[in-house]
């Protein structure tokens, strides 16, 4: 197994863990955390492909990771703000209780 494949396996396992958490946990915050984990798995993929790819000097993978980290930060901020607003409305962060559109 080449190191690249190792990286990819790690990242896919990370992704799977994140997906499992996001799918199974009841708490909205944890769903968000799972999504963050999936994002990071993707980032790891990018880094790995950049490092083991044909043209590391192009730095493209790194750039994409930097941008995606920024986007992830924004996503986390907005998502958590949303969760807080929803919590104020429903008095809960339970995903399967916040299912109706009008409250």
């Amino acid at each position, binding site marked *: 197994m080449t190191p690249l494949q190792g990286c990819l396996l790690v990242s896919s396992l990370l992704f799977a863990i994140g*997906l499992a958490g*996001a*799918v*199974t946990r009841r708490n909205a915050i944890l*769903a968000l955390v799972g999504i963050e984990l999936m994002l990071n798995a993707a980032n790891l993929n990018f880094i790995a492909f950049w490092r083991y790819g044909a043209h590391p000097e192009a730095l493209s993978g790194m750039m994409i990771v930097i941008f995606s980290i920024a986007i992830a930060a924004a996503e986390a901020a907005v998502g958590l703000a949303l969760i807080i607003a929803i919590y104020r409305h429903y008095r809960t962060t339970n*995903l*399967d209780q*916040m*299912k*109706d*559109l009008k409250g």
Partner: protein
Amino acid sequence: MTWIAQNLWLIPVLPLIAAAIIAVNKQPQRKLAATLAIGSMVLAFLLSLCAFGTTLLHHGENGVFREVAGFNWFQFGGQWLHIDWVLDPLTAIMLVMVSFVSLLIFIFSVGYMAHDENFMRFFCFLSLFAAAMLGVVIANSLLLFFISWELVGLTSYLLIGFWYHKPSAAAAAKKAFVTTRIGDLGLLLGMVWLYAETGTLNFYAGGHGCLEQSALTTMVTHLTVGGMAVSMAIGLLIFLGAAGKSGQLPLHVWLPDAMEGPTPVSALIHAATMVAAGVFLVARVYPLMSAGGLPVEHGVPVTTALTVVTWIGALTAIFAASIAVAQTDIKRILAYSTVSQLGYMMLGLGVGGVAVGMFHLITHAFFKALLFLGSGSVIHGCHEEQDVRKMGGLKKFMPVTFAAYAVGMLALSGFPLFFSGFWSKDEILHSAHNWPVSHLPFFLGCAGALLTAFYMTRQVALVFFGQFRGGVRESAVHSQSHEKNKPSSHQDSHAAPHESPAVMTVPLVILAGFAILLGFIGTPAWPWFDGYLTGEESKFNFSKLIEPGTLGLMLVSAAIVFTGLGLGWWLYGKRQRKTVAEPDVLQAGQPWIYSLLENKYFVDEIYEATIIRFNRWAAHVCDFLDRWIWGGAVLVVSCVTLGFSWLYRFTDEFVVNVGFDTGCESLREGGNEMSRWQNGRVQTYLRAIGVALVVLVLFLIWGRKS
């Protein structure tokens, strides 16, 4: 291009603005209204004077001074429609006359209408009328002329019906409007035809206006039905309009009834200016009228149109004068005299050309306005009494009015040498005398003059001499004056009439002065007016006055006038009637003639019997057609439509709706099916996404493999 000719439009626009402002202001602001109207009129008058001065300045240099200014209104088809105004002696003299008389009458009516609660409305209408009239005067394009003309008609309608609560007033307004419409129809037709012929409506447009040589020649040479020249046909049509407006013979019926309006209105519109508009129209299109006539030795060419004008004028003169003899309403008498004087003007136009007619128009405007205002003052003084039989002996009650009125009366009946009426009428008679076609108009004119002198004497005698006869019914009149809600000027009901306030008498005096003086600008010895209009120098030579033809004629007319005066005095002045009820002298003498005259030759009745009945019958026929024929057709069509709609409804309810219902039902069920998946649980979606990811990856892999 002089400044004033450029800005001539200001003259009508100023009163228009005044009218607008008065109209939009809130009601009881008499002072503002009066100030605005009179102020604008003063400005207009000054501008008119300025225009007049300009024409005097350029007088006598290369023919008639004439300047045209204007702007393009809108474009239809290939060509522009111009709104033009012209400044020439005719316009200038009319401008001065109209604005001056209107100004005086405005001032007068400030006093006369002082107690009417619709004061502002009245002044709004007056200003509007003045604007329209001035527009008529300055118009160079027949279109602008027509617009202003109709506006004049409208304002006259509004003002006649000013006291619309009186049914008679309302009816009179309607009558005036309808009757003048008949004439205006002719005018409109003539206008259209003129446009069709010459392609322009401008009178003067530097060589290719419709009154200038090129257009005229084409119109003269071009023949139409019955082999008469187009120019003549158009002229007749236009003259029909003029006749309607200034009450010539067949269409004169509205003018006496128009006396229902307030007296200043009668004075301004139905004596001085508006009725003169018809004459002015004929004078304006005189080149068209006289086109193609074979010229005779001195001056006036003879054409069919002018002949018609002459005859109509002569007949109207005698006809109306004879009616005026038997009237008892002071204003009606004046109205009929107005009609006859208008007839004189037409006669003058026909036989003597523009100058003669216009001269009489100007003088008449002044002394007739004077007379009307005098009668207004009398009526005002007698607490809204209009019946001459109930007056009498007012000489001592209202001396100023009497003096002014006497002057006006003498001027109207043409007292020799000193009064303007004499000169103008004399000129008409003179040119009628040497009219080549026939002498009958001349004799008619003389008879008219005689009658004029007679009935004016009668009126003055009845009103001012003798002793007052109206006292007994004073209270009744008073209450009557209350019930038509025009509060009388006198709350204390004392019987005696009284002199009018200065604001009313002063215009009288001014007008009286003009009534005397104006005559001297047109004497045969010094025909300045003639020269002014035709544009050549006029020099003073006294010999003209005493050359046999003129002198003889003057003597003849003087004799006629004296006869009339004497007859009137002998019949009415010498032995005054005692009571109101006592019959008239003529009535005692010649009962059926008197009744014939009193009922105005039954013209109204004749119209009633013929035209109006026919009209009613036609209305019935139309009603029948509408009710049964068209109605039936419409009924059939609607039934068919109803049938169709039934069919549609049937298909809608039992075919389309059912189909849609089933469709929607299935859609809803599908929605329910779907919504079990769309259950708001985020994690369900996430799972679906995961499955989709797996499927996608597998697909990609095997897509790669195969």
